[in-house]
């Protein structure tokens, strides 16, 4: 595939994304939206300071985010570093919450393919249901599309039954044209999900980037008939932003994509905001963060 794809209309994309964000979602629709958003969360902790204890606490919260509001569902998955997959898997056993692991030299991906494969195999062997890999931005930016695709497809093989989410790290790609192109490369190479960001870059799942990637998924589906999921990660820190992403998914790909099997939101701090906004719809009172556990 060459880099001769049609250009992305930057102004048009941003206007459409902004227009979808202006939609008013209130009362029962807001409650439903919040419950849906919670069920699609990949609750994430990717810090150097992560410990087994912290991951266990986060897992408990993932299974039951708000004990006082039993109608709030469990989140979709917990996302951790490979070394903590075993801990997360034990803590989540029987809950239905999936264990996702980042791999392939996350977040920079500046290691050899062998190291990336080994990283992935370790995470899968430890029991990860889902693998979040990063593409080689270094190869992509140098124009070596073949290497990008080959890496994705080798990692996909190494995943076995585990789902593969491919992180494009859009903030480092430079333009919407590149985002669309990288999306196509990842999907052609076998990605089950394409994902915006690591959460470690300057920006992440901006509305424009999300729309470009969703449209790429739609076009790829039309062409190949294969369904690919989308994960918005990085910068989705408020309920409003989460609901905005839901609207974009619904309007671009339809209701079929409003399920955790096809759409995820990767975040950590957004969960408490979702819970706080949900409590506000129940009580009519503006909330405070200390009403909910940090982990």
């Amino acid at each position, binding site marked *: 595939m060459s880099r001769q794809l049609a250009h992305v209309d930057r102004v048009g994309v941003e206007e459409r994304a902004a227009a979808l964000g202006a939609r008013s979602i209130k009362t029962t629709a807001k409650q439903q939206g919040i419950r849906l958003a919670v069920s699609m969360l990949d609750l994430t902790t990717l810090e150097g300071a992560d410990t087994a204890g912290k991951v266990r606490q986060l897992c408990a919260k993932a299974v039951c985010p708000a004990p006082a509001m039993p109608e709030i569902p469990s989140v979709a998955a917990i996302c951790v570093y490979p070394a903590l997959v075993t801990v997360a898997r034990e803590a989540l056993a029987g809950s239905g919450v999936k264990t996702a692991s980042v791999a392939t030299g996350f977040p920079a991906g500046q290691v050899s393919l062998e190291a990336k494969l080994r990283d992935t195999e370790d995470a899968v062997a430890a029991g990860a249901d889902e693998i979040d890999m990063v593409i080689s931005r270094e190869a992509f930016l140098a124009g070596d599309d073949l290497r990008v695709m080959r890496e994705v497809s080798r990692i996909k093989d190494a995943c076995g039954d585990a789902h593969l989410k491919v992180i494009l790290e859009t903030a480092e790609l430079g333009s919407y044209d590149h985002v669309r192109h990288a999306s196509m490369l990842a999907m052609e190479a076998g990605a089950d999900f394409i994902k915006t960001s690591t959460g470690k870059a300057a920006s992440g799942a901006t509305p424009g980037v999300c729309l470009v990637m969703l449209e790429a998924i739609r076009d790829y589906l039309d062409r190949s008939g294969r369904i690919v999921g989308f994960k918005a990660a990085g910068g989705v820190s408020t309920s409003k932003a989460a609901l905005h992403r839901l609207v974009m998914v619904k309007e671009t790909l339809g209701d079929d994509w409003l399920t955790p099997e096809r759409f995820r939101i990767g975040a950590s701090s957004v969960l408490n905001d979702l819970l706080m906004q949900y409590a506000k719809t129940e009580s*009519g*009172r*503006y*909330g*405070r*963060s200390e*009403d909910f556990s940090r982990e």
Partner: protein
Amino acid sequence: MDRLPVRKTYKLWIGGAFVRSESGRSDTVGVFNIPRGSRKDVRDAVAAARRAAEPWAKRTAYNRGQILYRAAEALESRRAQLIAVLTDAGSDSSQAEAEVDAAVDVLLHYAGWTDKLQGVLGAINPVAAPFLSFSLPEPTGVVGVVAPDAPALLGLVAEVSPALAAGNTVVAILSESRPLAGLDLAEVLGVSDIPGGVVNLLSGRRGELVPALGAHRDLNAIVDASGEPALGTELDKLAAETIKRTSHHAAASSYELAVEDSLERLAAVTELKTAWHPVGA
């Protein structure tokens, strides 16, 4: 040649920025347009005050004193303008002068309290056990202020200053009938050294804003100088939901009245932390 009249549009002061009401509504006071704040503006202001609370409390008492002193200097330099605003709102000129002077002096007075509060409210407690027990004052957190209608400027400054001196951040609802002095105060404090979000000033309908403020779960204390008993009762009920501290004052109408019970005003927005430290038997 006649000039076209240039009419000022005042703004809310939230998080250090001068913003229109989120609701887009405005009212007219005399020839001025003033924003009519909404419940969401209250929410935004409390969120901004919460973000500003920790850094403000962490500053040294000496530095907070410097910043408040500088705010008093800024207020003094706008003396003539504020006197004109108060005169337009119906005060006679000697009254207006006295009120602005008193407001500056009150701010200065509380600026001096910042580094004395610990010495006065704190203590080493005499305990009959092998412990060193000591109490330290700490700021309550985010304090809501309901400003009185009269005196509009002095009444506001008298409630906001002690909360700031004690290390709290403030969300104040200005007088509904005479909001201009408070909105001008925002512009004065906005060019002083007070960090964004430490003081937030909202104009609008008291009946709409005050209950939203009182019900906000992230507010820690309310100082009510509205002088409306029904509003005070409603605030007490709302505050009880999250055990906010509430105090009700008559509007301070002179410098003397604003400072005579300084310590009570400061203590109303201060928590005492007591630590027991074992000492050798």
